């Protein structure tokens, strides 16, 4: 069976519609995960032991359960509770909860990697602990975690494919419907894979540029 490029070109709009949703969801989930991770790492470093333990428990919980099950839990659960969420919102929520947990751990490693002497230099200048953290430690930590954050972003982009199971018309769903309708199976999945590769490559390329830009000389 020869590869039918015409098919790909004819159906490009279908793929691009799906791609648009994929990019939208990826971008939102990425930004929200970065922010939510910051909140979680804040709780993880709280002065109150119960809060600390709660945050640690949360991180363990999301890291050790599949994001797909979390999506089902939120999507079908919200319907059962009488507040049905759209597939997009439920998917976004699950992606953020899961990846925020991973991101929090990445931040934590970054923060721990900044020498205590830096905090001390801030305190010696007359900063409060909070100021030393936000002015001195955190900006350095964030610069060091660009590469692992980029990997997490790639995971998010790929995991957006899962919302196809809760009826969101993103790219994988679009491809699947096309494969169901036509027999052009190779063309569909080849194109899908190529488009994902493209998105992932552009994203990680951009992150590499950012990393080079913000890198701090030792």
């Amino acid at each position, binding site marked *: 069976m020869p590869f039918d490029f015409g098919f790909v070109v004819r159906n490009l709009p279908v793929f691009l519609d799906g791609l648009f949703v994929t990019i939208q969801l990826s971008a939102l989930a990425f930004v929200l995960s970065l922010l939510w991770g910051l909140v979680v790492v804040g709780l993880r470093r709280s002065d109150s032991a119960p809060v600390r333990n709660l945050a640690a428990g949360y991180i363990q919980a999301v890291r050790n359960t599949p994001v797909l099950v979390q999506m089902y839990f939120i999507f079908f659960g919200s319907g059962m509770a009488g507040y049905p969420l759209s597939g997009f919102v439920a998917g976004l929520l699950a992606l953020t909860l899961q990846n925020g947990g991973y991101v929090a751990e990445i931040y934590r490693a970054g923060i721990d990697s900044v020498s205590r002497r830096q905090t001390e230099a801030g305190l010696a200048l007359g900063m409060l602990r909070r100021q030393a953290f936000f002015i*001195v430690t955190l900006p350095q930590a964030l610069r060091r975690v660009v590469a692992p954050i980029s990997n997490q972003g790639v995971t998010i982009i790929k995991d957006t494919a899962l919302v196809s199971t809760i009826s969101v018309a993103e790219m994988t769903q679009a491809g699947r419907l096309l494969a169901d309708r036509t027999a052009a199976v190779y063309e569909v999945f080849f194109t899908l894979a190529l488009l994902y590769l493209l998105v992932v490559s552009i994203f990680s390329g951009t992150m590499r540029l950012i990393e080079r830009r913000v890198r701090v000389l030792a």
Partner: protein
Amino acid sequence: MSIESGRAAIELRGVSKRFGSVQVLNRVDLDVHRGKAVVLIGPSGSGKTTLLRCMNFLEEFEEGEIRIDGEPLGYSDDGTRRRRPEREIARQRAALGMVFQSFNLFPHMTVLANVTVGPVRIKGLPRSEAEAVARELLDRVGLGHKLDAYPGQLSGGQQQRVAIARALAMKPKAMLFDEVTSALDPELVGEVLAVMRQLAESGMTMVIVTHEMAFARDAADQVVFMSGGSIVEAGPPDQLFHAPQTERLQAFLRHFREGYRL
């Protein structure tokens, strides 16, 4: 004790500190007078760095008190030894400039930002004003041409001079120097000591922990020899270096002469 003019800028009375079972400071008394440069010398482990860190409350101490311009440092004034609120401790620390062995510049900020971050973020000075002060200070330490460089692009000696400017930018009452040349390549030591010498001549109150005996001899108003967590001997440099009274100081100086030729 009432606040009177003419009393020492930094007063230590009976300062004691232990790490676990080790007594690192043992009832230390010391007066650092306004405009004077006091140099702390002694073998490693003698407690001189810990003492200096206590003066900026980077270390807590269990007994005794330290007064900065008459105000007790770190602990409250009412005799309870309750730790002061964080804001007050930060204010007290801001009044003392500290320079570290490992520079501890903020690597993600330019030289100019390193020197302005204190005045702007802590004292709330307008940025333009802080920058004017910073430029002047950086000129003074010979780095007026490196404003936009990052610490990682500078030599150790240059970084340490920026660190001095950073501390000076807070207009401190006194400067604390913790072995600031120990991490430098030998050929870079001179430029840092020159800045410190100039600072001492300008009348800055300074407490300096160092192994640079020649510098101590030339630039100090008073030299303090510490050993085993106590002050063993103190006095003008001439007296300490040429007529040491105690066995321990004699041994320490002999050791140094053999190593470094004083």
